[in-house]
Structure formats: C-alpha cells, structure tokens
C-alpha cells in the first residue's frame, strides 16, 4: 500500500514538472544572426550619437 502511494506521488510530480516547463520555449541560437548583430550596432551608434555611450 505504501509503495503504491509513493508511485502515485512520483507520477504526479512528473506531470507537474512537465506543465511548468511548457511555460517556456527553447530559443534558437541566434547569437550570430546578421539581422540582430546589425541592429545592435545601429542601436549602439544611436546611443553614441546621443552621448550615452562613449565613442570608443
């Protein structure tokens, strides 16, 4: 009886874990994405022009 209860608890905890992970998505690796890199450079240039970032 005690063993059955333990198994039930395990099943429940696995279900809960699955539900929690579905809140997230796996982001594709876009670290070298040309669009993002180009856009980041444009944003930095704008911040430099505004004097927020140093020019170097």
């Amino acid at each position, binding site marked *: 009886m005690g063993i059955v209860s333990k198994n039930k608890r395990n099943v429940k905890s696995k279900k809960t874990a699955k539900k929690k992970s579905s809140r997230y*998505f796996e*982001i594709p690796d876009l670290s070298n994405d040309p669009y993002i890199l180009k856009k*980041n450079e444009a*944003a*930095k240039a704008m911040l430099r022009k505004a004097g927020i970032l140093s020019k170097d």
Partner: protein
Amino acid sequence: MLPERYEYRRARGYREYQFFSEGPKGKIRKLVIYSYLATEDGHAYYNLGFGDYDAVANELNDFAISNNLDRDKVLATVAATAEEFTRHYPGSRIVVKESTPARTRLYQMKIALHYSMIAEIFDIQCQTATGKSVPFRKGENYEGFIFERKA
C-alpha cells in the same frame, strides 16, 4: 481599453519571447529578443529585436512584411513583452532603433496613439537626427526611442 494581443511564451531569463501571428497568410512565428548592449550610469541598455523567425535559415527577419492583417495585435504583443522584460530587469532601458524610416514612423504613430497608456508605465526618450534626447511629442520625427520603466 487594452489593445488585443497574442499569448506569448518566453525563454528562461525573460529576454526572448515567442508568439504566432495568425491571419490570412497563415501562422507566422514571431520572436522578440532583448539583446544586451552596454551599461552606462547604472542602466543596462537592451536593444529590441523583433521579426519573423525563419526556421529553415535559422534567422530573424524584420524586413518581412507579413501582411497578416494583425499589425496592431502584433505590436500590442511586443509591448506586453517589454512590460514583462522591464519588470524582471529593473533599471534597464530598451533601445528601439528600427531598420527603416518607415518602420520608425509606424512606431511613432503607435506611440502617439497609445501615449497615455504607455506613459503610465514607461518614460520615453526620443533620439533626434542631431543626436539630442528629447521627450516624446506628437508629430515630431525621431531616429529611435529609449524606454525605461517608471519606478
């Protein structure tokens, strides 16, 4: 009234978000990415990158014009991610520098339209063509925007 928006999912870390635009052109996967740029005077600057995700090429494309007849709903969803992002990154500033003047004008128009709602949550600094940072004014043209969540 809050504009209608899509449900979105986030990646761990609250810096990337995903949702699907749905319309006559089908279901289009959209990504919103906040990329760290630099820290100045205690403020971390993040660039807002947003566009259609092409899984085959594994790239983001913000030049794509989806024509999925849901532009306002898409922009409202992006705004919702900014709200969530800044909640988890207090003191951060979001830089919006669009890839085309037309896109910048579109954002200007949408900011003007929803200004009172946006201004309740964010301070908006606008970058002029001469490099000045000025508060948002309707009818003015800007090169980009910096959003910071109000304390």
